[in-house]
């Protein structure tokens, strides 16, 4: 099976008064290994909800999701944590690095948590930090780094355990355009080199260069899927 994501009929509803708000409407999506997707949509279109479901952080009201061929058991919290730990890499809007840990340790925590053997740990982190041009800053804490540097560390953290799927939520929102582009290029390069599926959620239409697909979401439904 070459698909890292097979989502069918993903629907999410929240109770509202006597009715309910449907924030995601029967979304179907397949992403192959190494495929890079940009998910665009206005505020409130359901991007974050879809990303949360694909990231096994939120259960859909209806529909199914398979990651790397395995159906996601949304009722099993331990299994969801295991999937997130071993198969998914996350890049968040504000990097969300631990302020009290060095750049190296921020990457190491994800690797150790995913069960990367300690013999491989150092070489793998060194390789990734070098690839994102941050090895020189490995001992610095996040407060000593710029926003772009922090996102590069976050990128290394997302990739260090060699996930099959990388999910990035507005990774350039807090960066200037040039730095944002650099971070996105690194995301594209390294996701492809690891053959991981990549989904980047953004408002920024200008980032679409280099992505294999651009997916648009509007009012909870997929409205466009350009290849």
């Amino acid at each position, binding site marked *: 099976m070459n698909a890292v994501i097979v989502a069918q009929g993903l629907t999410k509803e929240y109770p509202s008064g006597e009715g309910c708000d449907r924030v995601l409407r029967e979304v179907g999506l397949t992403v192959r290994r190494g495929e890079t997707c940009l998910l665009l949509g206005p505020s409130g279109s359901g991007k*974050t909800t879809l*990303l*949360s479901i694909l*990231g096994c*952080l*939120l259960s859909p009201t209806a529909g199914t999701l398979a990651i790397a061929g395995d159906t996601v058991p949304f009722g099993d*919290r*331990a299994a969801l*944590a*295991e*999937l*997130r*730990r*071993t198969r*998914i890499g*996350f890049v*968040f*809007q*504000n990097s*969300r690095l*631990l*302020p*009290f*840990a060095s750049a190296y*340790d*921020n990457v*190491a*925590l*994800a690797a*150790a*948590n*995913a069960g990367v053997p300690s013999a491989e740990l150092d070489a793998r982190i060194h390789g990734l930090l070098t690839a994102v041009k941050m090895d020189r800053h490995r001992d610095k804490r996040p407060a000593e780094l710029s926003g772009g540097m922090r996102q590069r560390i976050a990128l290394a*953290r997302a990739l260090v355990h060699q996930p099959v799927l990388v999910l990035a*939520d*507005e990774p350039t*929102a807090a960066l200037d355009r040039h730095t944002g582009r650099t971070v996105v290029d690194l995301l594209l390069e390294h996701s492809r080199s690891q053959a991981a599926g990549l989904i980047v959620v953004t408002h920024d239409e200008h980032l679409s260069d280099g992505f294999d697909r651009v997916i648009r979401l509007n009012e909870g439904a997929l409205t466009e899927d350009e290849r």
Partner: protein
Amino acid sequence: MKASRIASAMLGYNRPRLVASIVGVGVAFFLVQAQFGLLVGWIHTCTALVRHADVDLWVMARQTPAFDYGTAIPRQRIYQARSVPGVAWTEGMFVAWNVWQRGDGRHVNVQLVGLDRSGVGGPWEMAAGVVNAVHRPQTVIVDHLYRKALGVVGIGEDFELVGQRARVGGLSRGVRTLSACPFVFTSLAQAIRYDRRYRDDQITYVIVRCKPGADVGAVQREMSGRIPGAEVLTTAEFVGRSARYWMLETGIGITVIVTAVLGLAVGTVILSQTLFAITQDNLAHYSMLLAVGFSGRTLVMMILGQALVLGVSGMLLGIALLLPAAWLSAQTPIPLETTPGIFMTLCGVSLLTCLAASIFSVRRLGMVDPVSVFHG
């Protein structure tokens, strides 16, 4: 980077708060140990003469509430007790409240203890002189801890005891009193001469040693049967009764225990608030850790680990405060003492309290939604 390292780094990130918390927990732990130390010290103090007498049985008037409150019994009880099979030795002892007059005319209430021929029941350690000095005419021994209270500078000085001359013939060491009335030792005969309320044929206690191998319980029962109107207690029973009286009936012990519990409560609140503040400050990090696959159980263990680190650090500080306090108090009438059992029990209770203090943090952690990582 393991969860334990993340937890400790989280704890140490705000150094001033960490130090303030450890100091708070340390002082609370010190308070708890010190209160129980006072309790143990007081129990040792109020039972010291009974324990150090090293006898098997005590004969006394019925319903004597504590060693300090003995009342007169006939001297013939000494001989009645000696006639019981299994008894090796008996002597009399006198204990009663009296008035000491200092050189400057001030009166001080004292507990006058009259010792029989062997001096058993008297001081177990002397700072100056010998115990047998009590058998010299109108001679007394006072404790060096209470020299100032009694106006005593040294041996050979004369004072008045119930209006009669009392010459200081020796200074004991470590004979404390819980009642704030220092013990003054003299001979049994001299004590009765001082205390005109007692007749020549009256004493306060008969102290009894059994023959080697004798069944003390059987001797006690036999003696109780043969001496009507008196009560016969083993040393352990008399120690227990005296301690219960002072600690429970006077309320001293209850007060100390309440203060110790308050200390424990203060420590719990400090630790609980610190942990909660740390958890609250790190909610975003916890949600990130949950999102990247850390289990809820691991995060709970991180908080419990932080509670233990804070608790143990505070306890070490508390012990560092306790040791000099105990050493200093050993030179005063109010000693801080403990036993290994009490010390370890309080350490265990304190650690359990630390873990219990983390409950609010753990509950707060349970409300963390990992989806919040996608909300900027």
